[in-house]
């Protein structure tokens, strides 16, 4: 994934810093609570929500089980409709393809629709290195770009910023990128939106190349779908002469009819609306309307590795609604940056370590960035059992084992950091296998209970930082049973 995140500290360290940031916690609490209640109301309007959710899950599973066939079908349909399809095995290859395509147009700037895939591959940085300037046009992405910040939420990358901070960023930086913010800009959301409208309009009107992702790709028709709110997406998809869409291979759905499921699930789960303001669909190119050249770059970048894991592959059902972030007690307190990836929150905790592998400190720590409360699974519109995958990935980190990396089966060694945990488990296994030792140990523990420390020494200390140790009873259950026959004597 993007180099932006190299060298990120493990989740617990990053989160510890974040939870002490009072402004950040206030901003996140306000935003996530607002959207949580609204989502619940929007979902409650549809009496068949569980049936839609089951259908969404099944459509995605069917697609994933036959992904090769649907990708080939999609390629044929897009090509027949006048599009050009490219395949990218990893981020570098996708960046090379897009850079080459932009250069071939002779342009040195592009306008971009918000896209997780291009964030993931670090496209803006790759273009910048080749002298091409990419303008983000989604309001939240603009805030992140102008503030030289990192995104912290899938849907609203600037969720960690409140209106006052946004005002300051606009007033300070818009002039460096183009039209400056109006004088006397206040922090009213309507005025901030107006400032973005004025700032970006000149860029839209002169743009020759647009870059997008897609929410869905329909295999049978070759249709791409972009779901958005502001109209920046429509600008990028219709005004430029050339459109380049970078889309993960898991975004394909088999049929046009399947959209009837996802166009009901997605808006209500993400922005809590019956329908988002704008949805665009296009199939190849259309004479006289919109871009006359259309490139589709199909991106792997760890998706096939994820697909190879029978438990973990359900993460590829994700439609990037971000409902799981908004309900997560860990996300609400730690914020998105602590996850060290463009995919934060519960879905990020299972997606990033699968797309990138669990070799780095941050990726090995992500499966633990959860209390396993299950709220994420409950709200997920495609029923991804996130707690199940978290536990599965924890096992992989601790025990090691067979995984697929860049298409090759490799055997991971158990992670070093978990040696004490493994030793404790081995000791427990031995003790439980030896009743005499267990009995002696329990007696000793009961007799010394007055002098037991409140916190564990050595490697156990971090664990007992935030947990109370269980109190040892005066007498073990086994001893009590032997003495009284279950209270009979």
């Amino acid at each position, binding site marked *: 994934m993007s180099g932006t995140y190299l060298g990120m500290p493990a989740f617990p360290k990053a989160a510890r810093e974040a939870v002490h940031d009072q402004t950040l916690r206030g901003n996140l609490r306000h*935003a996530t609570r*607002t959207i949580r209640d609204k989502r619940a109301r929007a979902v409650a309007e549809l009496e*068949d929500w569980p*049936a839609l959710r089951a*259908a969404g899950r*099944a459509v995605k*599973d069917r697609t994933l*089980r*036959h*992904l*090769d*066939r649907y990708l080939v079908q999609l390629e044929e349909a897009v090509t027949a409709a006048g599009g050009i399809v490219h*395949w990218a*095995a990893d981020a570098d*290859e996708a960046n090379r393809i897009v850079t080459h395509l932009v250069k071939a147009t002779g342009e040195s700037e592009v306008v971009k629709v918000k896209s997780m895939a291009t964030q993931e591959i670090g496209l803006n940085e790759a273009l910048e290195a080749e002298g091409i300037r990419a303008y983000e*046009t989604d*309001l939240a992405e603009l*805030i992140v770009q102008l503030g030289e910040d990192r995104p912290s939420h899938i*849907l*609203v990358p600037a969720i960690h910023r409140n209106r006052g901070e946004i005002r300051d960023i606009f007033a300070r930086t818009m002039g460096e990128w183009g039209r400056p913010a109006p004088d006397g800009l206040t922090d009213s*959301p*309507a005025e901030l939106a107006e400032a*973005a*409208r004025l700032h970006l*309009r000149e860029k*839209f009107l002169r743009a020759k190349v647009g870059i997008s992702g897609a929410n869905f790709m329909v295999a049978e*028709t070759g249709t791409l779908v972009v779901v958005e*709110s*502001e*109209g*920046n997406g*429509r*600008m990028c998809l*219709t*005004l430029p002469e050339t459109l380049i869409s970078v889309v993960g*291979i898991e975004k394909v759905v088999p049929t*046009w*009819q399947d959209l*009837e499921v996802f166009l009901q699930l997605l808006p209500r789960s993400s*922005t809590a*609306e*019956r329908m*988002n*303001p*704008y*949805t*665009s*669909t*296009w*199939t190849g190119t259309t004479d*006289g*309307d*919109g871009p006359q050249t259309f490139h589709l770059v199909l991106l*792997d970048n760890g998706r*096939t*590795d994820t*697909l190879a894991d*029978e438990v973990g592959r359900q993460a590829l059902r994700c439609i990037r609604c971000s409902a799981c972030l908004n309900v997560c007690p860990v996300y609400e307190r730690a914020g998105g940056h602590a996850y060290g990836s463009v995919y934060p929150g519960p879905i990020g905790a299972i997606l990033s370590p699968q797309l990138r592998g669990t070799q780095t400190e941050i990726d090995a720590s992500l499966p633990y960035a959860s209390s396993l409360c299950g709220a994420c699974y409950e709200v997920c519109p495609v029923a991804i059992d996130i707690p199940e995958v978290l536990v599965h990935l924890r096992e992989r980190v601790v025990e090691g084992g067979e995984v*697929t990396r860049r*298409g090759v089966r490799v055997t991971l060694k158990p992670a070093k950091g978990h040696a004490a945990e493994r030793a404790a488990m081995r000791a427990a296994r031995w003790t439980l296998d030896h009743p005499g030792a267990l009995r002696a140990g329990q007696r000793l523990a009961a007799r010394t209970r007055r002098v037991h420390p409140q916190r564990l020494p050595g490697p156990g200390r971090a664990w007992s930082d935030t947990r109370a140790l269980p109190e040892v009873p005066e007498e073990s259950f086994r001893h009590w049973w032997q003495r009284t026959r279950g209270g009979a004597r």
Partner: protein
Amino acid sequence: MNSRERVLARVRRALADVPREERPRDFPVPRDYLRRHGDGERSAARTAALLAGNLADYRAVVHRTSTAGLPGLLARLLAEHGSRSVVLPPGLPPEWLAAADVTVVRDRETVTPAELDAVDTVVTGCAVAIAETGTLVLDGGPDQGRRRITLVPDHHLCVVRVPGQVVDSVPQALERLDPARPLTWISGPSATSDIELDRVEGVHGPRTLEVILVED
């Protein structure tokens, strides 16, 4: 091996657990969700009322008239908005604007984005309107035109024929639409939820959306 072959080979290896003989339709997709929501059959009048209510809920301004009343209503709305120029798709019935005192720009391929930006209003028809979600769908038909003309001007007047163009639900709308055409689904004026996850109307698309329901 090129990247296409490489990615497809990786996919096939990753799916080693899927039985070779399994076809996509062997993996069941339950489609017992509803084709439309709400109790019983809705009358055409109630469906139109639901559409009007949901459009208004997302800050579209809704008007109702008859075919005979349409030119007068359009003239009044354009005057009230202070519009001096209006862009029209090539196939929009000319009599709709017969009573309006505006400069008419007929859209052609040569009309540039900058020229569209200088126009006050766009008037179009639509392909389908969805009552349950308050959504208008444009498919580039003769009375709707290129996608950009309903995007760049700041004021959009959209005419919906009731009940002919109104459906209840998203599934019903998709059945009527042709995926080969470029579609734009519009639910209220341009908006954003990007500041503190609260909805604010008015970003890049038309900030004023007025919908005229025409019933005879």
